[in-house]
């Protein structure tokens, strides 16, 4: 191991001494370089437990392959180193411990590590290691200062402090709280700055954040310490070489990458990815153009005929509701079916004739007072009188015209009913007794008693004297002789005179009327 180590170290020494132009061409230095890189690899191995390689495999391997191995080892190493740095930023004491231990135990190794330079492993790694080494130094110095400050603080507060309560711890606690609330800026400005800068270097894409954080750095980073000044002077520009340049550089990088790709693989042929990309670009351009152009008339919402091109509605498949049923297409089948229907209906005699709608049920017509067009027989007073009587005493009210009509109608109907009943002898009902003045009709008794139609006989009820009461010959006017006429006249005169002799006594009383003279 020592031999190997020494050989490796020797190789490193040799590489250091060689001129830079020698590296450009392949030379015998390659073996030395390999040995040197192996040595370095072994040195770094203990700090990197995750690495898959125990030693750097060099024999029969390509430069690419060796580089890959180194890369695989160094990547996790870098991240672990970063974590370590962050940890140290939070807890400066640990640095002290570590620093003391390392200084005491393996000074040599540290020296070797710190003095790394000029190897094929890559500039980035070297730079990282160098900067990390610097940072470690700075942090160690800071911690020493911090320790001094802490010792001073302890001396002042002996009166208040207890075994339970220490002002130093209180202050630390407060600072921790503030750090949590406001970010770590408050506690350790310099540590934060460093950490953030490291993050920036890793994240190339977030340019905006970097700019904002630069502003923040301007606010916070401005301490009186020398170390702070050093770090404060380490600006964005140091890392990225100016904001404007950066963007251009980026684009240039991309295009350069593309150019490199093309140059690498020929001018005409594109990789599948590139082809897809080109296609996509063209598509995107097309879509963008379509978006910017005015829309097709079908997409413009409500369009009148004036706004769309002529006959354009014919070309488009329009869909709208038809309120009317479409006209039936007359085919042979349709006509045949209709004719069958007609025939069957005729056979059945089931015609859909329009039936007269049934008239409304007639209400009982109100008793309409007849328009009497003749002079009323009653005076106005009597009219009102009758009305009053009707309202006051309905019983004594005289019958109205309608009442009389009703009476007459009912009488006629009763007569009719009686006659009809007589025709059917089964149930004999006698004539209803109407309380009227008895009417003596000159009808034979047999006719009154018997209902059945009677034969011819004409026997009268009245006595002969009742029929005619007279004496002697009865002669008609035309049969009388002259003497008989004279005799009659004389008789008449005598009678009249007798009567007029009684009357003048009566007439004398009546003064107003003029007496009708004889």
């Amino acid at each position, binding site marked *: 191991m020592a031999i190997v180590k020494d050989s490796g170290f020797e190789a490193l020494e040799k590489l250091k001494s060689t001129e830079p132009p020698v590296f450009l061409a392949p030379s015998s230095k390659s073996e030395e370089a390999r040995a040197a890189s192996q040595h370095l690899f072994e040195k770094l191995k203990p700090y990197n437990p995750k690495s898959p390689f125990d030693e750097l495999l060099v024999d029969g391997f390509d430069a690419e392959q060796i580089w890959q191995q180194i890369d695989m080892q160094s990547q996790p190493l870098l991240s672990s180193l970063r974590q370590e740095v962050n940890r140290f930023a939070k807890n400066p004491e640990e640095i002290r411990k570590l620093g003391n231990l390392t200084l005491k135990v393996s000074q040599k190794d540290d020296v070797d590590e710190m003095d790394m330079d000029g190897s094929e492993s890559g500039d980035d790694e070297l730079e990282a290691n160098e900067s990390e080494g610097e940072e470690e130094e700075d942090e160690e110095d800071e911690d020493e200062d911090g320790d001094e400050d802490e010792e001073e603080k302890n001396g002042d507060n002996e009166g208040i402090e207890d075994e339970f309560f220490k002002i130093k711890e209180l202050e630390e606690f407060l600072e921790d709280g503030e750090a949590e609330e406001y970010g770590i800026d408050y506690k350790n400005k310099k540590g934060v700055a460093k950490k953030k800068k490291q993050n920036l270097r890793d994240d190339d894409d977030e340019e905006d954040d970097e700019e904002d954080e630069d502003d923040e750095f301007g606010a916070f980073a401005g301490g009186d310490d020398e170390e702070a000044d050093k770090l404060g002077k380490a600006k964005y520009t140091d890392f990225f070489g100016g904001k404007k340049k950066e963007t251009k550089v980026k684009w240039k990088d991309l295009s350069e990458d593309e150019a490199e790709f093309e140059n690498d693989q020929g001018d005409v042929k594109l990789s599948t990815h590139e082809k897809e990309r080109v296609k996509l670009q063209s598509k995107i351009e097309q879509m963008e153009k379509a978006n910017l152009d005015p829309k097709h008339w079908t997409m413009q919402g409500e369009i009148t005929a004036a706004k769309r091109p002529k006959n354009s509605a014919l070309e488009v498949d329009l869909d709208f509701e038809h309120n009317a049923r479409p006209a039936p297409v007359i085919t042979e089948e349709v006509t045949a079916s209709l004719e069958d229907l007609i025939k069957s209906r005729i056979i059945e005699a089931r015609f859909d004739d329009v039936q007269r709608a049934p008239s409304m049920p007639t209400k009982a017509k109100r008793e309409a007072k007849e328009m*009497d*067009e003749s*002079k009323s027989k009653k005076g*106005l*007073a009597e009219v009102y009188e009758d009305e009053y009587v009707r309202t006051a005493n309905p019983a004594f009210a005289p019958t109205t015209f309608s009442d009389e009509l009703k009476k007459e109608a009912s009488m006629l109907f009763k007569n009719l009913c009686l006659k009809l009943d007589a025709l059917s002898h089964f149930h004999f009902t006698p004539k209803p007794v109407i309380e009227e003045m008895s009417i003596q009709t000159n009808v034979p008794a047999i006719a009154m008693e018997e209902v059945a139609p009677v034969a011819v006989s004409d026997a009268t009820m009245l006595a002969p004297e009742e029929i005619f009461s007279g004496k002697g010959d009865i002669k008609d006017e035309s049969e009388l002789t002259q003497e008989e006429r004279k005799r009659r006249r004389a008789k008449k005169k005598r009678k009249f005179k007798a009567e007029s002799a009684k009357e003048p006594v009566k007439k004398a009383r009546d003064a107003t009327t003029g007496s009708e003279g004889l």
Partner: protein
Amino acid sequence: MAESTQMEVETATQTAPLPAKPTFKPLKAHEMSDGKVQFRKISVPPNRYSPLKKAWLDIYTPIYDQMKVDIRMNLKARKVELKTRADTPDISNLQKSADFVHAFMLGFDIPDAISLLRMDELYVESFEIKDVKTLKGEHLSRAIGRLSGKGGKTKFAIENSTKTRIVIADTRIHILGAFTNIKVARSSLCSLIMGSPAGKVYSKLRSVSARLNE
């Protein structure tokens, strides 16, 4: 001290009782207007002179016997005079009698005019044809003919359906009846004057009178 004075005031008001409200018997017609006798004078138009002579007793009897109003005919002045008597119960009797006589003078029959004596709510309304529409010459004659109808049937129809009595005296029209009935009769007469045919007036009359008589 103040209380005692107050107390005195109250007692003073209480001790003097208010006089009793005077109760008067209703005034007789005779005593009204400070006991003077009241007159009504109704002039007789020349065309009503002989009908008055014929129906005099029918006028005289109800006024003298039932209304208890003195009535006489002033032949010289051609006026019928009415006077309250001592035993006329109410002053309205005189007025009713006067209205009755006036109605007769306008041309109403005795049985129709008598209703004025018997009922309070009857009135007489008069208007001229020219109030409704200015008609001249033949138009006027035709209007009068339309009003009466053939044999007076239109007039009777209106009279019977509205319970009124109508007198058409040349260009004057008088209607006797209750207030609402007068209105209906008047509207139908006016429509006849304006020119509507009799049939139309009948139909309207029918509906209105049916509603009236309900």
